[in-house]
Structure formats: C-alpha cells, structure tokens
C-alpha cells in the first residue's frame, strides 16, 4: 500500500496563462524516488526511441512525450494494477508508467513478435491486457468512449454482477486539440449521469500539431467545460509531479468511491516536435525556452535535493539505473524475432461460437419454458 501522503499548503506557480494556485502532495522519500525514476524512465525511453528512429529501427509515425512526464507519472502512479488507462498515439510513456515493461514497449516499436501487440500495432497502438492498458489509439478522441466503456464495466461489475468489491478506475488521457472534439462532452455527460469511475486528463501542451490552442479554442480554459456537463474540473500545473499527484489522488479516490468523474486539465508542454516527422517550425523559440526552463524532471530533482531525499549523486545513480533498463529494452528488441509473414492473419478473428450444441438447461430452467 502507498505510504500516507498529505497535501501541502498552496503554492503560487507561474503558468503560461494565469497564476495557478496548486496544492502539492507531501510524499516520503520512497515515493519521491519512485516518481523520479518513472519520469526519468519516460524521458530516457523517448530519447532512445528518437535515436532508433533516426537509425531506421523504429518506423511509422512516432510521437514523443518529452516534457510531459509529470502528468503521466503524477496521474498513473496513483493507480492500482487493475485500474485502466486509455491513451492516444502519444502512448509509450503512459504505458511505462502503467507498469508495462520497457522491453515489450520497445519491441513493439521495433515491430517484433515480442512487442506488446506482437508487432501488429506499433508506436501508436500500445495495448496490454495484463496491465489494463487500453490502449494506444491513433485517432483523436476515439479513445474517450473506449475509456468510458472500461469505466462502465467497472461500475457494472460491482452493481449488476457483484463480481467486484470495489471499482477499478479508468484514467483517460487526451490533448488540448482533442478537447475540441464533441465526443468528450458526450462522455462527460454519460460519465456524470452514471457516476462512472473515470478521470479525464487533458494534457494541454498548447499545441495540436501546428494549431495553437489559442487559435483553435474559443474559451481556452478547458477545465471550464466540465461543470456544465456535470464533471467537476480542476486545473493543475502539469510540470509539477506533486501537484498533479495531488489532484489525481483525489480524483481517483472519488472515482473509486462511486462519486463520479473528474476532469483534470494539466498545463504542460512537449519539448519536441509533434512527431519525429514534424519540422516544428511554428512554435516560437521564446515559448519553447520558457517551458524548457520548467523541465519537470529537473525541477523535481531540485525539490528532492531540497527535501533531503536525494543528492546529485543519487540522482545520477538513478538515471544510470534507468539507462540500463532502456538499453536492455533495445537489446531485447534488437534480438527478438520478427513475426512470421505467414501469421499475418492471426488475430483478426477469434474462435467462432459453435452453435447447435444442445443447451444445458436445468430442470428449473425448463420449468420456466413450460
């Protein structure tokens, strides 16, 4: 069980559009280390992918997560293994935070048979039945109703099947661009009506490929759009892992207890282009610089040092430890077998139901038909 965490007093943080009052959770050293390592894993993993992409080992459209690590770590590290995460095409780091191994994610990026989706999905389609990661969706907003569905199943299992004591929570990630898609509001409404255990997390990184949030969105405060659909909403500094963790913990707890959905708008930034194919020509250097200065990993490292949780040396050690995990994932992916071309049709269909077997009806059942 996670160690007790309390919430610190409000702290003023500069954000890109207003001064944000954010509470942070107070974590102990072990939790802090876990959070730090998870963020570093995310960062190093993505940097490695970029290398492998330019070497031609990884292909397709590849969207990296650099800069947004505090959101993935801050939210997903509040979850239980049986909780669900639903992501977009920018999904590798969410997958790692959820506990999927670097090996299976990297191997998927390589398209290998050992990848989580056996090489069928690739970068934009990470899935894991073991880790309730559903999934990796390439189309904007299509993951939101899917997430509503896993949340619905949790509530259903408790209320209509009695097979679950308490509810698994679903965290659904989406971007600022996706937040203009109407499906989100359909899902808000339904989640609220049924008090489903779901947390919507908008990672507002100000850009949707080349479309700046301000140009695409009449009212840029996304968190204002939850309440008219019955979804309590909160804005948070997405560059501060403890601030994210604070709001996520509350939202997850509330969801699990059957008190319904929450929308978290996390203000963040991607440090790289939209995808590895994006020339990234539209974002101003000044803007990028301002956000780079707020690197969530660096900042959290400083915080840990200030709190006496770490030293430069231990942080370096942590990074080295992670580097090995990442290197190992590459080695694993490199040495893994390709899927067999003759198996290309595997997984399209599953076994058919065999009809016509005599129905096994109890005599009680039979009486019903009499």
């Amino acid at each position, binding site marked *: 069980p996670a160690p007790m965490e309390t919430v610190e007093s409000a702290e003023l943080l500069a954000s890109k559009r207003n001064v944000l009052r954010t509470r942070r959770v107070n974590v102990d050293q072990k939790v802090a280390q876990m959070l730090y390592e998870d963020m570093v894993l995310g960062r190093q993993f993505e940097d490695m992918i970029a290398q492998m992409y330019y070497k031609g080992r990884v292909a397709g459209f590849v969207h990296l997560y650099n800069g947004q690590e505090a959101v993935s770590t801050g939210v997903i590290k509040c979850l239980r293994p049986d909780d669900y995460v639903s992501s977009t095409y920018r999904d590798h780091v969410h997958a790692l935070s959820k506990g999927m191994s670097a090996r299976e994610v990297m191997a998927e990026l390589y398209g290998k048979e050992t990848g989580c*989706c056996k090489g069928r999905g690739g970068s934009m389609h990470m899935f894991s039945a073991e880790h309730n990661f559903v999934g990796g969706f390439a189309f904007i907003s299509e993951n939101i109703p899917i997430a509503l569905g896993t949340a619905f199943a949790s509530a259903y299992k408790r209320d*209509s099947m009695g097979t679950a004591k308490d509810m698994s929570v679903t965290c659904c990630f989406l971007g600022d661009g996706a937040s203009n898609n109407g499906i989100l509001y359909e899902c808000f409404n339904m989640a609220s009506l049924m008090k489903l255990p779901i947390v919507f997390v908008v990672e507002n990184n100000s850009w949707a490929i080349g479309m700046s949030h301000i140009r695409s969105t009449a009212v840029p405060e996304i968190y204002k759009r939850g309440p008219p659909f019955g979804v309590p909403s909160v804005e948070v500094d997405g560059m501060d892992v403890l601030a994210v963790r604070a709001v996520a913990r509350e939202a997850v707890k509330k969801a699990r207890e059957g008190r319904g959905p929450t929308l978290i708008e996390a203000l963040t930034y991607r440090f790289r282009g939209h995808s590895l194919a994006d020339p990234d020509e539209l974002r101003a250097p000044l803007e990028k610089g301002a956000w780079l200065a707020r690197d969530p990993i660096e900042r959290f490292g400083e915080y840990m040092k200030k709190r006496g949780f770490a030293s430069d040396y231990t942080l370096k050690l942590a990074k080295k430890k992670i580097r090995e995990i990442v290197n190992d994932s590459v080695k694993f992916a490199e040495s893994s077998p390709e899927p067999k071309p003759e198996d290309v049709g595997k997984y399209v269909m599953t076994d058919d139901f*065999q009809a016509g077997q005599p129905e096994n009806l109890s005599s009680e059942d039979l009486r019903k038909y009499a």
Partner: protein
Amino acid sequence: VERTMFQALHMATAEEMERDPAVCVVGEDVGHYGGSYKVTQQLHYRFGNFRVLDTPIVENTFTGMAIGASCAGLRPVIEGMNMGFLLMAYNQISNNGGMLRYTSGGQFEVPVVIRGPGGIGKQLGPEHSQRLEAYLNAVPGLKLVMPSTPYNARGLLKSAIRDNNPVVFFEHVLLYNLKEEIPLLPYTLPLDKAEIARPGKDITLICYSRQRHVCTEAANRLAKMGIDAEVLDLISLKPIDLVSIKKSLQKTHKCIIVEECSKTGGIGADVMAQVIETCANDLDELPMRLSSKDIPTPYNRLLEEAVVVKPEDVVNSVVWMMASRGGVNVMPKP
C-alpha cells in the same frame, strides 16, 4: 409457439441476459420505451436500468463505450434505433469494433453485437432506408449476419451474443411482424451457414434478409411455370458460405443474386466475384445481379417501388435466363 420476429429477438435477448450477467443492452430508448421495435420491451424491469441502458443520442459514444466495456469483459448488445444512425458511429465500429483485436495483437476481444432495424421500409425516405451491410462489408474483423425469419432470428441472435467476435446483426424493418411457429426451448444456430429457404433444381436464387421472401414468392410463381428455383438465404454476408453456394450450383448450374442494397459496392458484387472465382466450373450461365438502383431511397411510394427488386423482377430474370441457354451473353470457351 408462434412468435413474430421481434418477439423471437426479444426471447433471444432475454434468455442470454438471464444466462450470462455480462450480457447487457445499450442504446436509445431500449429501456423505458422498450426499443423502437419492441425488441427489448420490459427488459429493464427484469434486469434493471444498468443492464438495459437508455443512452443519450450519442451513437459514436455509446458504441465506443460498449466496445470498451467488451474489452473489460462485458458482452454488450448495441441497439441502433435505426441501423442508419450508426453511420455516426462508423469510426468506432470499424477502427475499434473491427480492428481492435488485431491491433492489440489478440489481447483484447470485442464480443459485441450491433443490431437494429435497417433496409427499405415503407416510405421512410433516404436517410431511414439505408443498407449498411454494403457500407460495412469492407471492414476487416466484423461478422455481418442477417436473419430473415423468427426462427433463425432467435437462434442467430443467441449465437451472435455468444460469439467472441464483433457481429453486426441486421434486422429488416419490414420483417419484425413476420410470424412463425418456433420451438419453445432455446436453441442456437451457426452464424456462418446459409439456409436453403426453398429447395429447387433449376436455378439458385442467392439472397438475404427480406429478399428471401421476395425470392420465395418468385419461386412459387415460377413453380407454376414449371421452373423449380432454389432459394438460398445467405444469412451470413461476411463471411459468405461458399460451400453451400457451391453445393447448390452443382445442382442448378445457374444463379441470380438478389439484394436490397444498391448495385455499386453492394453485397452482390462480392458474391458474384466469389462465385466466379470458385464455382465457374459449376455454372452454365453467367451469374446475374438484381439489386436496388444506385439511388438514395426516395420517399414517394411509386419511386420507392421503382428502386427495389420485386418478385416479378426475379421471375422475369429467371425466365430470361432459363430461355437464353445457348444465347449470346455466355463466356466463350477459350
């Protein structure tokens, strides 16, 4: 017992919900209202509002929700109040219904049934007279099934619910009130087998859904003219039961494909191509298609009738084909 088609579908749904608590119904007005064609009538009293879920009018969302829930172990039956409305859910049906299992490398199954009324009814106009089987045929990973009688509707729907693949189950608006004697006790029927609706030896009429009845009527008229037509109801549009088709063609050596969807991009084109590819040796006439015209279904009654295939069209074409033996429009020997 005598049951209409909508009653048979109701029985199937209720039985499967009784049998497996993971089976639930999702859609517009399926609960309190009982479904626009009464297939889920009163089920909410028996199984609760949660298992018979009335949704807002958000086809893409509730379809996606059902698919997500199926990944998490439920077996939702999605009702399209009219199948046409599910055009709004096309993305969820194709990308996630059809492809999610594959994309995830087989990790997640999508045991949903997507069912509801479709086809050309009585003057419902262009948007309410759609034949989505033609729009969805190319989506990989889906099974397309079309019942045509109360008997097969019940058995097929039960199998569809138990199948672990996504099944799109097309009911025809004009068949809901068709009555028939069906067994009291539950039964299941295979999703992928065609049915011989009427055996015959002279020519095979390959059809599905309401056209089964059109063809049967035509066959009855033909019988009076001494022509013995076999009516083969495909039942499964995807995959097509080529084994049954071949068997029939080995007997009749001739076929006409009769469909309600329009000709271009229709089911008939697929059947025709597959018949040519696998049964050419069994044929001594070129197969022929009778389809609806490539026109949005008009509201006016006369125009609507002009769009679809009627029994007399089938009769005429059969007579023509039987008479043309040795005629010109035949594949020449190389």
